[in-house]
């Protein structure tokens, strides 16, 4: 069975190689090939899953050693895979949602000349992401980590003829590099501390390692997670990443790649368990991002950017849960999976709306679309109910557990984290209701564009609606399936470990509070957007709204602190270079030049003057000799 693991990665990798090197000959069938290979990967994953279910919890971990990558004395890097319950969860999510989005892209990218290339990149992403979650050591994980970064860059900038897309791709890549630095430093620290970077030995050795070292490694891993998962302070790239085609936003920037940070933290759980300070920082980052993303999501009029803010916020929940330690790991991953379903579904819905509306993204120019796009409306609506945590749907089970775990952290921290998570739930309900009302309800507000083309909203083709329907099923039932009877908990517990937290509030109270704030959020949004007509141009808004429209000034902050700071630094370095370094060099040269200019005048060409020097020199020598003798 374990020999099948490599196939998971190999299939999409083959697809990427064939599609990207194959040339125009594949233009007509390339998308089918890409989809088929993604589906092949999913089928293999399902086979492995069925096999895994048939075994006892202790024997479920499979490993496959492909080859020794760098067999150096004292430094062993292998290309080896490890498939345990955690990896399996991710593999199913990635290949499953990935396949659905391949199918969706067939319809969505139908009119794009470079569709073959798009599918090549998508396959490349799948291969890299699967490598990331299947690696059995941090170095191979790093390869996948960089691979998804590359695929993300290529796909954000897929419409590179738009300067905004090209810039967004560069921005995402650069910000991710900052996080990647964290991961590479963490790996180096691991190597100096443990002498290896394979998961097994590293995570077993954490018990005998000093807390300081574990904290350092943990914080570097967190930096890496912040970059990839768009957490504060490396969050600024995610909003701009919406320049990419919508299937990309759904697959990479909502369902899978951005959750790699959560995977990294949960996978490295043993390290974080030994470093409570690092854990605290993780929870703080999660809580801050949770509110940050939610506030940004409230103010955006661009449907994809509102959803991007929401993604950031939901990943904040997961990071928060991962930072809680063994009481939260399982719920972080559970929310990750349910989020993968409903957020991918929401993005695909948004893509379907844009597809029918001439690629208009401003929600203020939508309105009343439920009559024109019934399938999109229903699937998007189910995703909406799932994400706000409507009782019975996916988000309800996973988010409720996280809020409960946050309270169970105990002490003042527990109260603060729990309240932030609750507040986040209220804001989530508010901004998602806003998206829903602006898009599907109210009067129709679309107008002809500059060239006089009025949009004709229509339902999307089958290739697009079927994936949406499948994801909507996931949004509705996944949470209940996982949550009722703690199925997911039992499944993942052998890998991540689990500890029941003792919440100061009873489970029923937390659930009641969650539903309460949810209703408040929905009611507020309804009062603001559901009753009267919505202005087509956005009103000026309060100070907070205006700040949130600018992503809470994240770019301004980066510009002032990092760009300006960097400019000042380089300018002062240039100044020092010009004055000090060049000064010394040029000064030496000028002194020498001046001196030799003077000396040159001695060479006047008059034989008599040379004779004077000779006589003078001889006289001096004789005088000196006589003097020496006299002494």
């Amino acid at each position, binding site marked *: 069975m374990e020999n099948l693991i490599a196939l998971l990665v190999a299939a999409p990798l083959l697809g990427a190689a064939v599609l990207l090197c194959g040339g125009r000959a594949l233009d007509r069938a390339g998308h089918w090939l890409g989809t088929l290979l993604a589906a092949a990967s999913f089928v293999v994953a399902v086979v492995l899953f069925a096999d895994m279910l048939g075994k006892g919890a202790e024997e479920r971990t499979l490993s496959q050693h492909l080859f020794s990558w760098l067999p150096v004395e004292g430094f062993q890097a292998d290309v080896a895979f490890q498939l345990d319950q955690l990896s399996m969860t991710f593999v199913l999510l990635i290949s499953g949602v990935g396949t659905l989005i391949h199918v969706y892209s067939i319809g969505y990218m139908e009119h794009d000349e470079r569709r073959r290339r798009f599918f090549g990149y998508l396959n490349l992403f799948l291969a890299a992401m699967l490598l990331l979650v299947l690696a059995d050591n941090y170095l191979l994980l790093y390869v996948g980590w960089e691979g998804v970064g590359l695929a993300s860059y290529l796909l954000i900038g897929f419409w590179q003829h738009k300067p905004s897309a090209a810039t967004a791709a560069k921005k995402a890549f650069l910000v991710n590099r900052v996080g990647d630095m964290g991961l590479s430093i963490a790996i180096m620290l691991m190597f100096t501390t443990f002498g290896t970077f394979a998961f097994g030995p590293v995570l077993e050795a954490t018990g005998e390692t000093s807390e300081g070292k574990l904290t350092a490694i943990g914080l570097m891993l967190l930096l890496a997670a912040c970059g990839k998962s768009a957490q504060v302070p490396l969050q600024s790239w995610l909003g701009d990443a919406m320049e990419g085609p919508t299937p990309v936003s759904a697959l990479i920037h909502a369902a899978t790649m951005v959750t790699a940070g959560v995977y990294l933290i949960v996978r490295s759980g043993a390290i974080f368990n030994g470093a409570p300070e690092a854990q605290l920082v993780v929870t703080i980052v999660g809580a801050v991002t949770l509110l940050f993303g939610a506030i940004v999501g409230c103010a955006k009029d661009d449907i994809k950017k509102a959803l991007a803010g929401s993604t950031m916020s939901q990943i904040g929940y997961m990071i928060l849960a991962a930072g809680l330690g063994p009481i939260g790991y399982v719920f972080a991953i559970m929310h990750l999976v349910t989020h993968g379903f409903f957020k991918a579904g929401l993005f695909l819905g948004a893509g379907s709306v844009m597809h029918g509306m001439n690629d208009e993204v401003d929600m203020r120019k939508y309105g009343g679309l439920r009559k024109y796009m019934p399938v999109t409306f229903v699937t998007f609506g189910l995703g909406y109910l799932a994400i706000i945590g409507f009782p019975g749907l996916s988000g309800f089970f996973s988010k409720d557990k996280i809020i409960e775990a946050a309270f169970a952290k105990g002490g003042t921290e527990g109260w603060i984290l729990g309240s932030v998570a609750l507040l986040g739930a209220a804001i989530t309900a508010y901004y998602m209701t806003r998206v829903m009302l602006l898009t599907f309800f109210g009067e129709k507000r679309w107008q002809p564009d500059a060239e006089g083309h009025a949009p004709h909203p229509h339902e999307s083709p089958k290739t697009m609606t079927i994936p949406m329907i499948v994801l909507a099923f996931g949004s509705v039932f996944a949470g209940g399936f996982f949550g009722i009877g703690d199925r997911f908990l039992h499944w993942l517990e052998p890998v991540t470990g689990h500890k029941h937290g003792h919440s100061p509030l009873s489970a029923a109270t937390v659930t009641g509070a969650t539903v309460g704030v949810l209703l408040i959020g929905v009611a507020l949004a309804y009062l603001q957007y559901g009753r009267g007509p919505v202005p087509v141009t956005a009103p000026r808004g309060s100070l907070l709204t205006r700040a949130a429209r600018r992503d809470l000034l994240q770019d301004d902050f980066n510009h002032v602190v990092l760009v300006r700071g960097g400019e000042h630094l380089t300018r002062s370095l240039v100044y020092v270079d010009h004055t000090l370094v060049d000064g010394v060099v040029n000064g030496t040269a000028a002194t020498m030049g001046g001196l030799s200019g003077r000396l040159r005048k001695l060479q006047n*060409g008059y*034989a*008599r003057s040379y*004779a004077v020097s000779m006589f003078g020199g001889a006289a001096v020598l004789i005088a000196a000799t006589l003097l020496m003798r006299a002494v």
Partner: protein
Amino acid sequence: MNPVNYLYLAALLFAIGATGVLIRRNAIVVFMCIELMLNACNLAFVAFSRMHGNLDGQIIAFFTMVVAAAEVVVGLAIIVSLFRSRHSASVDDASLMKL
């Protein structure tokens, strides 16, 4: 007669020759002054030879004369060719050896 007096005379002749080399411009005169200096040296050698009672100084004097004769041949040839090309025997006119 005290041989030291010859040394004084040699020194005086050498000084006259050196001054002439330094202050005169005419190449012929400068050349003659150099001869004067050489002969002052010869005188000093011979005087020392006498004072020390050996022949070394005299032998060196002969060498000096031979070298001086050769030098006169070469030097006069140079001066003549300089005069031909520049119509002047002034040493200051031949000041091309400068930057």
